[in-house]
């Protein structure tokens, strides 16, 4: 051991730690450890008085390093390191011993928990015993931002960031931005028209001098780290020059290929060359390569012949663009849990059983039926409509365990929209319970029940089947305990929201985590709701979890604020816990060079040299070097060996 003057501070965390761990004993035992010259326990170390007491002890006892035995370093490592700095210490000589999450909260036996807390604390004392004072490494930042996903979340984030003067690249995989909000008819609780409030924002995006919009594009590769990411974006060819396209529709009028229109969720058809919807941004037609007869004038070529401005070009090729950005916002949104999973409800095979988004398209003035609610199968006006909530949600045994949060609200909206279209029709709603937290939300649902006379039935639907041109709905009303049978003309399923297709891939590309349900994981459920676990990558909208538009917009604004804050600095500090080489030991075998995932090591004059800006301190090199010539600062083999010893003593 080197000669150190370490202080140990054991936190009670109120009763969170003290109830299970004998904190006084931990402090007593630590006082006897080699190198420890001071130790104490305190009820809330992170409080102002707690932090001041640490500062005072550092000064009084002339400490050169501290160990705080408390909660996870994810919570307060920064707090305590900053505090140590305030007392004149180097912040990297402050170590955290996690005796709450990894000990007090997971054990009941007081003696054993105390024993383990001693080991954890002792291990941190050993680490601190060999900690070097380190200074953060300054790295320049790229003041440009990548936003992935052009739904309302991505649009809002892009606009907020661009309005702060930063350059934004907005990447959307569809041919238009807008996301699911474009498909909605009216929005709860105020019933304002979705497209009317969204379209102006889409136009703002397309005209914004700071925003570079890349639709029909996907992010393929990401490297680097906060402040300096390098991204590889693949833009698929649309075969139509958006600058020239006059959206005259001449091309679609002659195109012989008819395929289902995904924007209307298959309720209408489109041509191979099409515009997703009239106000699409960019305002241009797109040729769907997979549907086209072959991009070949000999096979067809009708659209190219008819386009007067010559906007169509069959020779367009995919383009790859490499961009450097300082921060990334991920707003890849949601998709509905597929009907095919719901066998008991027909598995998507029963006519006129629709999902919520299809119903939105039926109600929308721009939709399949020009805003008349008609059954897709025979275009008659449905007089009895059954809405079923929680389809696929809150069912851990068979489907998604979580609550999709917005379905109670949009089902109430659907019942209302239906009654406004078909005043003499009857709307039934099957529900488990009604979750209507939000400004004006509860009043909205009450109004639908009372004024629009929607019939709410508490219970689950067990079966759906076709009978005599109707859909027989078998369910139970759990309030009366009676079985219910309804012969419906149409059934609308409020299917669970799930992470959009491709979320797993994008999470892998970005090296950010997902939660147990597959949504992108935030760094802390309460205190870091828009940060991913990777510095510089932020989350917005339904990609992070089910939410409605107001919440999505708020989260996008929060993510934008974080990005703006981050990039308002000229340089960022990079953790100095990077690899260093002992020249005397290095033989230049290059094993570490190939082990380093960041290409941070090169060989100069026969010795390994670490580029500190590129090094992330993962330690892969040190585990590979046979001569202990390369190690990570403050996580050296000597430190680890002593920590191991501390854990076993």
């Amino acid at each position: 051991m080197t000669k150190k003057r370490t202080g140990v501070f054991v936190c009670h965390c109120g009763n969170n730690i003290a109830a299970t761990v004998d904190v006084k004993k931990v402090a007593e035992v630590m006082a006897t450890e080699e190198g420890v010259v001071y130790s104490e326990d305190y009820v809330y170390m992170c409080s102002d008085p707690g932090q001041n007491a640490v500062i005072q002890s550092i000064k009084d006892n002339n400490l050169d390093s501290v160990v705080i035995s408390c909660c996870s370093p994810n919570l307060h490592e920064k707090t305590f390191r900053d505090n140590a700095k305030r007392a004149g210490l180097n912040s990297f000589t402050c170590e955290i011993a996690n005796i709450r999450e990894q000990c007090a909260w997971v054990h009941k036996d007081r003696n054993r928990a105390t024993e383990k807390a001693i080991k954890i604390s002792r291990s941190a004392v050993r680490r601190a015993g060999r900690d070097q004072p380190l200074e953060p490494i300054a790295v320049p930042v790229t003041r440009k931002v990548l936003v992935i996903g052009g739904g309302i979340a991505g649009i809002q984030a892009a606009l907020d960031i661009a309005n702060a003067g930063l350059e934004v690249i907005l990447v959307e995989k569809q041919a238009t931005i807008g996301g699911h909000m474009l498909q909605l008819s009216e929005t709860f609780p105020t019933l304002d028209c979705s497209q009317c409030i969204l379209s102006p924002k889409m136009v703002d995006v397309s005209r914004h001098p700071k925003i570079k919009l890349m639709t029909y594009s996907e992010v393929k590769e990401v490297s680097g780290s906060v402040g300096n990411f390098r991204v590889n974006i693949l833009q698929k060819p649309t075969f139509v020059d958006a600058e020239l396209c006059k959206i005259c529709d001449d091309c679609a009028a002659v195109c012989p290929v008819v395929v289902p229109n995904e924007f209307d969720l298959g309720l209408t058809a489109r041509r191979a060359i099409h515009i997703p919807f009239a106000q699409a941004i960019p305002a241009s037609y797109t040729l769907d390569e997979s549907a086209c007869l072959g991009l070949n004038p000999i096979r067809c070529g009708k659209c190219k012949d008819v386009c007067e401005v010559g906007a169509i070009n069959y020779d367009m090729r995919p383009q790859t663009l490499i961009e450097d950005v300082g921060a990334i916002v991920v707003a890849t949104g949601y998709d509905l849990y597929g009907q095919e999973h719901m066998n008991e409800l027909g598995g998507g095979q029963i006519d006129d059983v629709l999902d919520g988004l299809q119903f939105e398209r039926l109600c929308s003035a721009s939709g399949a039926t020009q805003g008349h609610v008609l059954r897709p199968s025979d275009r008659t006006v449905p007089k009895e409509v059954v809405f079923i909530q929680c389809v696929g949600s809150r069912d851990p045994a068979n489907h998604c365990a979580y609550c999709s949060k917005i379905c109670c609200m949009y089902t109430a909206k659907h019942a209302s929209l239906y009654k406004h279209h078909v005043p003499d029709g009857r709307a039934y709603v099957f529900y488990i319970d009604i979750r209507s937290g939000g400004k004006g939300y509860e009043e909205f649902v009450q109004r639908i029940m009372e004024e629009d006379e929607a019939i709410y039935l508490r219970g689950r639907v067990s079966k759906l089947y076709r009978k005599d041109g109707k859909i027989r709905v078998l369910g139970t009303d759990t309030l009366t305990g009676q079985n219910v049978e309804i012969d419906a003309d149409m059934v609308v399923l409020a299917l669970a929201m799930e992470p959009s297709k491709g979320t797993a891939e994008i999470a892998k590309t970005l090296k950010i985590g997902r939660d147990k349900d597959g949504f992108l994981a935030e760094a802390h459920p309460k205190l870091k709701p828009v940060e991913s676990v990777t510095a510089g990558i932020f989350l917005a909208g339904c990609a992070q979890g089910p939410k409605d538009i107001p919440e999505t917009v708020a989260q996008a604004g929060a993510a934008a604020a974080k990005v703006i804050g981050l990039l308002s600095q000229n340089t960022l500090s990079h953790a100095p816990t990077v690899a260093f080489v002992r020249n005397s030991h290095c033989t230049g075998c290059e094993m570490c060079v190939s082990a380093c995932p960041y290409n941070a090591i090169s060989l100069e004059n026969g010795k390994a040299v670490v580029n500190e800006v590129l090094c992330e301190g993962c330690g892969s090199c040190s585990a590979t070097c046979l001569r202990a010539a390369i190690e990570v600062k403050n996580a050296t083999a000597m430190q680890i060996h002593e920590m191991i010893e501390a854990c076993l003593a």
Partner: protein
Amino acid sequence: MSEQQAEVTTDYEPRIVAFLCKWCSSAGSDLAGVSRIQYPSNATPITVPCSGSVSPMYILSALNKGADGVLVSGCHIGDCHYIEGNFLARRKIHLVKELLGFVGVEPDRFRMSWVSAAEGAKYSQVIKDFVEDLRPLGPQKKLKADRS
């Protein structure tokens, strides 16, 4: 379970050193804590930057210092915060197991697991299972340095 067996299992508490990568498994163990999922206290965690940074020397060192079992837990393959560190770690497992067999230590005293930040319950299960699987092996003496 016979009385005698019961006595053996309560008497002997395997001592485990658990190397947890900072980004996934350590965060996963935090989640187990936040969710108050109980598990035995036999394993003392050491947080390392990445499972790929755990050199075979650390594992031997732990056994030499008296550990009955060593756990290395990292992110799932493909999710490594450090691109491919856990892949390197996985390649090393085989090597370590063979080495242990060679020096006469039960290879099962070393275990590798993949626990993500969202898998609090899994982390506690990994510890429970490891403790139970180590019991029948009894104390590890082969590599333990005589410290008396």
